[in-house]
Every structure is written in C-alpha cells, then in structure tokens.
C-alpha cells in the first residue's frame, strides 16, 4: 500500500569511531586470560576466578534449546580485549583519566553522537553515566554527588581493586560460572562493566546509568555488572547499548547480577538497540546475556524493565530469585523484531520465601521475517508458602511472514501458591491503521498510537525520558515494516 517509507529505518548509531586501539590477537586460551588480567592489573584472586570459569566453560556446550538459528560461533576467531590506546596508556601508568576532561576528544565526540553529551552530563545532575567503550569503562559522570551519599558507582575493574571485599562477597553469588555456557565465558574473559553499591538506608539521589558501545571489529564485548542495594536502600538503574553496522556478527555476552538486601529496591531498565543486521539478515550483534537478581532480604524488590529493539539474535532472560519473605520481583518487557531478527527472551521467577510475589508483563512485536519468542519460567519452591504470580504475554504480528511464540514453564511445589497466566496474539493490521487514519491520524501517529497502546503497561515502568526514547525507537523501526 505504501511504497515510500515515511522515515527511513536507518540505524543512526551505525557509525564507527576512528581511534587508536589496543587489541589482543584473536583467540581464547589461558594466556589470553592472564593477559587480560594483567592489563587490568588485577589481584590474584580475580585471575584465579577467571581461570576457574574458563575450565568450567571448556567443559560446557552452547545451549541449543532457544528458538534461534545461527551459524556456530568460532570462539577462537574473536579478540577478547580491545580498548582505546590513550586510555590504556594512562592505565598502565596506574592512572586512569582522572577527569572526563582528559578523555580522548574522539571518544567525547562518539558519546555525543550517541546522545550522551559529556558537557551536558556535567551540568545535568539527574543521572550519572558510566560509559563502556568496547572492553573498558572510559568514565563515569557526576561522581561528586554520589560521593556525598556514599554511593559507589564505578567500573568493575576499579571496584575489584578499590573495594575487593564487597566484590568478593557478591561477585558470582547470583550468577555463578557454572550457571550457563555464556556466564562461564563471561567469568573468564569479562573486561569491564559497572559496579554499584548503595549503602544502608540511602535512596540514590540520582539515576545511575551505563552506556555500552561496541566499536572495534571482530571483537566481542563481555561486560560484567554488579549492583548491590544494602538494607533499606533504593536505586533506579538505566542501561543503553549500541554498535556500528558491520557485516560480521559480533558477540555480546554480558552478565548482570543484582542483590537486594532487606527492604531494598532495585529498578533496572534497559533500552537495547544493538545493530540488528541489514535487510538481508547480514551482520548484527549476538546478544547472549545472563541477567539475574536476588531478593536476598525480606520485603526487598527487584524489577527488570527492558525494551529490546536491536541485535540479530537475542538470548536473554532477566530473572529474580525471591529468597526473602515478602519479596517482590517483576519483569516488564517489550521485544521488537524486524527483518531477520530472532529474539528468544523472557524471565525466570524463582519463589523461595514466604508470600513472595512476581509479575511478568511481556509484549512481543514481530515484523517482516523475524521470530519473537517469549520463554519464561515460574517456579514455586516447597518453602514458598502463599506465593503469587501474575503473567501476561501478548504478541503482536506485523505483516504475515513473521512469527511469535509463547513458551511458559510453570512448576509449583507448594499448594498455597496462586498463579495466573494470560496470553494473546493479535495482528497489527491494515484495518487498524485505516481506522485510525480515517479519524485524521497520520500513518506515523497511527502506528505510534497502536504500539503505545499495546506496550503501555511496560512503557509506564520506564523513567519518562527513557520511555519517550523507547516509543520513538519502536515507531521508527516499525514504520518500514507496516505497509
């Protein structure tokens, strides 16, 4: 019906940054791991942990149960460390860029093009950003205000050196290396990521945010994020990701661990917009991510909100272990696939404590020839007296060549549990669009209204600016697929 697209579905983050890089030769073995650890000047316990993870990984095989198809990844054909030279130089002297003013202007420009203006960040006090470029964290904004409240927010590399006790206590406590193939790989080769600790009783005064950028060719990004909310604390955490357009597939295998102690609350939001490959399905990021939170203490709360709009393949199940009595977990997700994208994403809610509650709201939109599967598990352990779960999984198909699926696993071992599951599939149809257009809404406004309505319950969980961005992102990607 509509031959000319209204807005070109161009990936506007597809540029590359021309900057001198230090990159390890391709390949994965013990020496590479030792090299990474030594570049990062890590203590021996971390190196030993990496080597243990590597041994575990070597014995594991890649999971094949997800509904995604891709050529096997050659793990020896990837470089496991890549960092801007200027940054490395300073690090070797044991002296990371002290202030953001010392950053390479090319990096500053890159983040500006991504919509993160460092100058702006210095003025805006609403959010602190940790910027991860390929394998390293290049800087964190708004440190002063965080210091005042005793909030620790820095790269995980710094944290390993500066706060070894905290890191040792919690690192791997939610996602051990034995958990899965990609978690083991990450444990062996992770190069950076963010660390965050909110002290007892502190409501983090500003939102914390990490921006992940893959730039270099033939590298993988393996970041590690660890976030600990001590008793009675609260934090709102945002995460964004982009990468250049490249014909080769690139691997992103991250691990995120969240720990909420008694009465603490963590809200973790992601807008994922990795490069998804071109119209013929060439290139794009393989996004194989393990994200899990543990409500350790009573009355603690963890919620994951994700807008997954990029990546050639998404394999991601942000989960919550509800260990403390009365703890609450939530998963709100919008996953959009178009062209040849494949997403297999969902959550796990493991109820251990009494009167634990979990909510799952998943909205999948699949367009073109893409595949979009919700896969989720709700597990009620024998100890979880009075546990409750509500799950709602809705799929929207755009066009007639895409497919959507819902795969819920429910395991209940306590009779007092109450579970509800609702699922629906609908089609974004020409008739719906015509209905709105015949009421004076343009094609763009119509798509926007339909998508907004469909994703409403998820978008309202996002902080306002993030939610506006997310809506725009989804609209832009859908405009070409509709009509």
């Amino acid at each position, binding site marked *: *019906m509509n031959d000319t697209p209204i807005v070109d579905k161009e990936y506007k983050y597809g540029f590359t940054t021309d900057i001198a890089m230090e990159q390890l030769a391709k390949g994965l073995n013990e020496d590479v791991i030792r090299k990474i650890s030594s570049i990062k000047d890590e203590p021996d316990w971390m190196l030993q942990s990496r080597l243990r993870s590597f041994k575990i990984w070597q014995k594991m095989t890649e999971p094949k149960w997800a509904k995604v198809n891709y050529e096997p990844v050659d793990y020896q054909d990837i470089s496991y460390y890549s960092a801007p030279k200027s940054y490395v130089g300073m690090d070797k002297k044991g002296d990371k860029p002290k202030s953001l003013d010392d950053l390479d202007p090319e990096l500053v420009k890159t983040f500006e093009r991504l919509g993160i203006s460092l100058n702006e960040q210095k003025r805006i006090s609403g959010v602190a950003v940790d910027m991860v470029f390929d394998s390293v964290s290049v800087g964190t904004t708004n440190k002063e205000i965080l210091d005042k409240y005793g909030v620790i927010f820095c790269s995980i590399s710094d944290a390993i050196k500066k706060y070894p006790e905290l890191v040792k206590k919690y690192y791997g406590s939610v996602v051990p290396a034995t958990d899965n193939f990609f978690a083991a790989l990450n444990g062996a080769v992770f190069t950076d990521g963010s660390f965050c600790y909110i002290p007892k009783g502190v409501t983090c005064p500003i939102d914390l945010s990490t921006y992940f950028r893959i730039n270099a060719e033939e590298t993988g990004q393996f970041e590690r994020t660890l976030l600990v909310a001590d008793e009675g604390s609260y934090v709102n955490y945002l995460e964004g990701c982009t990468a250049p357009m490249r014909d080769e597939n690139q691997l992103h295998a991250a691990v995120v661990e969240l720990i909420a102690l008694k009465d603490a609350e963590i809200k973790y939001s992601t807008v994922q917009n990795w490069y998804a490959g071109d119209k013929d399905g060439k290139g794009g990021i393989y996004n194989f991510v393990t994200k899990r939170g543990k409500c350790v203490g009573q009355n603690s709360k963890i919620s994951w909100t994700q807008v997954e709009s990029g990546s050639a393949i998404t394999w991601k199940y942000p989960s919550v272990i509800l260990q403390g009595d009365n703890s609450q977990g939530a998963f709100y997700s919008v996953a959009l696939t178009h062209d040849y994208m494949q997403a297999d994403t969902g959550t796990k809610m493991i109820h251990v404590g009494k009167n634990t509650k979990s909510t799952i709201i998943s909205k999948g939109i699949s367009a073109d020839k893409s595949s979009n599967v919700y896969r989720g598990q709700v597990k009620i352990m024998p100890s979880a007296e009075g546990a409750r779960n509500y799950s709602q999984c809705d799929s929207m198909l755009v066009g007639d060549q895409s497919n959507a699926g819902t795969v819920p696993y429910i395991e209940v071992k306590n009779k007092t549990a109450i579970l509800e599951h609702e699922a629906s599939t609908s089609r974004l149809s020409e*008739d719906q669009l*015509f209905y709105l257009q*015949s009421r004076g*809404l343009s094609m763009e406004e119509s798509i926007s209204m*339909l998508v907004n309505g469909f994703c*409403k319950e998820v978008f309202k969980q996002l902080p306002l600016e993030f939610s506006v961005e997310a809506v725009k992102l989804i609209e832009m990607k859908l405009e070409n697929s509709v009509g």
Partner: protein
Amino acid sequence: MLQVKNLHVSVEGVEILKGINLEVKPGEIHAIMGPNGSGKSTLSKVIAGHPSYEVTSGEVTFDVNFEQKNLLDMEADERAKEGVFLAFQYPINIPGITNYDFLKTSFNSVCEYQGAPKLEDEEFKKLLNEKVKLVEMDPRFLTRPVNEGFSGGEKKRNEILQMAVLNPRLALLDETDSGLDIDALKIVSSGINKLHTKNNSVIMVTHYQRLLDYVVPDFVHVLSDGKIVKSGGKELALQLEKEGYDWVTT
C-alpha cells in the same frame, strides 16, 4: 459536495465497482441499498481511502469551501481532515488507548489541519460532554480502551460519538443499523438527525428499510453487481422492502 464519476475499483484483480456515478449536494441524505456483495461497503471505503482497494479509473472529487479537491490523491487521514467521515460496519479495537485520548487526539489533528485552535483538556471535556449526551452514552465509556469489550451496539454508538466530535462535512455510515436493537437504533438515528444540517451530507449504506424510517433520505440508490441500477426518492426504499432486490436486479 461529492462527485463520483465513472468509478471502477478492483481488489486483487477482481473488479468490484464497475462505473459508479453519484452526486451528493450539501444538506442531502443519500441511501445506498443493495444485496450482499453488490459493492456497497466497497464504495464507502474507497471514498474514505482504504488502501486495499485499487481505483482503476474514474474520479472522486470533494468540494471544500468552493474548492474542488481530488480525494483519490489523498491519504485516508487527509480525507478525514478535509471532513470525510466513515462510520465502520465493524469498528476496530484499540487496546491500551482510552476512548477519551483517542477522541482528543483525533479532534485536535483535524483542528490543526483546518487551522482551528486545538483544545486543552478542560475545553475538550466540555465539548465532549455535550456530544456524549447526544448519543446517550454512559460517560464511563470514555475511560475504557477504544471499542474493547464493547457490545456490537455500543461500538456503533461509539462511531456516532466520533462523528459528533469530528463534525464532518460528509458522513459515510456503513451498515450503522446492523446489530442495533430498536432502542439503540432510535438513539443512533436521532443522533444522526441532530448532527445533520443544510451544510453537511450523509451517505447511508444499508440492507434494510428500517434505518430509513428514522433517518429519511432524499435519494435512494440501488447497487447491484458494482453498478447503480436504480435511483429514486425515499419511496424507492419502501418498494424494495416490499418486492425484494430481484425486482431491480433482474
């Protein structure tokens, strides 16, 4: 107001309208009747701009403030903004969007196009309250998602509410009477009559005479196999009711 000249329309290569001629002047009410599959709904959808139909030849022009505009060159939303309104035979659900938000967005995009000031919540609510009374709708419908969980009759009434809010120059009512019980039919008809002035026009597409008892047409056209085979005054509808469509189509 509206001129349809020798209109031919196909869907997926099958010709459905085979040369329609129709002229509607301001203030007139036309009824289009005909058996199933004669092309009645197609005609109203094509005038409103449904993208699935291919106009193979012919013209559809629309007069706005003494200027003649070619409707076929416009997207559906532009036609709506020029004052063409289609009340759907099967209104569509819009999950997650309240009736209120929908009506306000729609109203304001039409206002913006026509150079009228947009209304903020307070003023819009006032306007909406009047319109809600016109179709005797429960105001609670406004806070519910568009058409979700509405009964067939409620959906039809909601269409007339949208018409009342948008105040179109030309209203195309596609089988608005179907699925209505007699009370609802009276309310909907009285709404249509109240909205009708000497400056706007109505085209009703219907199977049955019963709507025409309440909204009295100036002209009745009988459509059969993609062509208008007979036109006349309101008495034509009565005659059809008595003798059946065979009387005009064979």
